[in-house]
């Protein structure tokens, strides 16, 4: 297991990358910042050994850079618009999206809660957020199961009305959402979350030297970003 960062460091990384990638320009020092921001998720994905997504990300982004550099100057009109839009979306949202993915897959819920607590977030924000955190992967699973079930019954291809399709997908998801909410609150009651005493945790997170270094690097990147 390679480097293991503190969740707070990861949060800082996410915010920095989000801010720079969304509004960064393609000229001057900001271009270098963008390059750095694009590289960070790749390295981090390698560090948690998810090689498949790291390589996919690398291919996608190099394709984007290639398109922006070589294809765009030779196109115009609608074609240019389409290529630019697709490239822009990938290069702007790709890194942020993968950072989110990295954050979710490399942080356990208890680590997340502990980190939020150390940052003195109130419980009314921490608990819903940690539930969301856990629920996003479940949502995807639920959707895939519904998709499979629809395919088995040969529903879906024939549905032309988008509202009907949305109803077919959304209603079962909403049903299971209600169910999951009930299950989770039962589970949290057994874990004593409803007791108003302070909770203890066995999960240890601490800021190491390289955490501080990374945060320092992020802050200086933001300073450069806004100063120029």
């Amino acid at each position, binding site marked *: 297991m390679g480097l293991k960062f503190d969740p707070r460091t990861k949060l800082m990384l996410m915010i920095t990358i989000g801010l720079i990638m969304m509004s960064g320009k393609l000229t001057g020092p900001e271009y270098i910042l963008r390059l750095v921001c694009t590289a960070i998720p790749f390295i981090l994905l390698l560090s948690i050994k998810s090689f498949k997504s790291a390589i996919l990300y690398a291919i996608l982004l190099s394709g984007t850079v290639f398109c922006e550099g070589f294809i765009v100057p030779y196109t115009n009109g609608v074609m240019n618009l389409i290529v630019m839009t697709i490239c822009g979306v990938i290069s702007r949202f790709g890194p942020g999206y993968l950072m989110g993915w990295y954050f979710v897959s490399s942080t356990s819920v208890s680590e997340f809660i502990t980190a939020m607590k150390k940052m003195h977030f109130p419980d009314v924000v921490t608990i819903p957020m940690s539930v969301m955190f856990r629920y996003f992967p479940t949502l995807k699973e639920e959707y895939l199961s519904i998709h499979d079930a629809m395919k088995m019954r040969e529903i879906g291809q024939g549905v032309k009305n988008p509202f009907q399709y949305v109803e077919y997908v959304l*209603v079962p998801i909403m049903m299971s959402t209600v169910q999951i909410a009930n299950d989770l609150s039962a589970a949290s009651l057994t874990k004593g979350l409803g007791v108003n005493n302070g909770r203890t945790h066995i999960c240890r997170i601490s800021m190491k030297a390289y955490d501080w270094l990374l945060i320092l690097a992020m802050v200086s990147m933001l300073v450069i970003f806004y100063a120029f």
Partner: protein
Amino acid sequence: MEKGFEIKDLITVGVFTALYFAVTFIVACLGFIPIFMAVMPLIGPIFAGIPLMLYFTKIKHFGMVLITSVIIAVLMFIMGHPYPIFIFCIGAGLITELVLRAGKYESIKHCIVGSVTFSLWLLGMVIAFFFGFREAYFASLADGYGQEYVEQMMSYTPAWMFYAMILMCLVGGGIGGLLGAKVLKKHFRKAGMV
């Protein structure tokens, strides 16, 4: 009624915020095609309104919608939207909260009105196109997406468009709320889940 939060409420907030956010996010992804961006405030709430209505029927305390709006604001901010998103989200959350409170958290009509007012937070996402933010935002877009994209976007978003978008939010929220109420009636009340 004013019993304060139980842990169950917080979990309901978390799960439904996740669902609402996911639906909105998927619809918002369409927004990169320029013409869709302009009608996003209309389409978004229509689909997102369906889970939102179910969420509203689960709400029994003051403050749950507010937490949802704060969480959405924080997530949007992390994803790189400018700061006005906080004002819009929390404002929309508060108004919705008051509407639901007026219905004592029971009336389905107030839920529909709540769906209308809650969808106003989407304006925080498009505020970058208008007023003081306009010039700077389009200048930054020109580098990233190319001049042609920017011109396309600009032609879809003249200043009066902002007011049209407010209207779109309201109409979209209304349609979404009505659809949601219909879905609730058709599926959930029968199953005894509301």
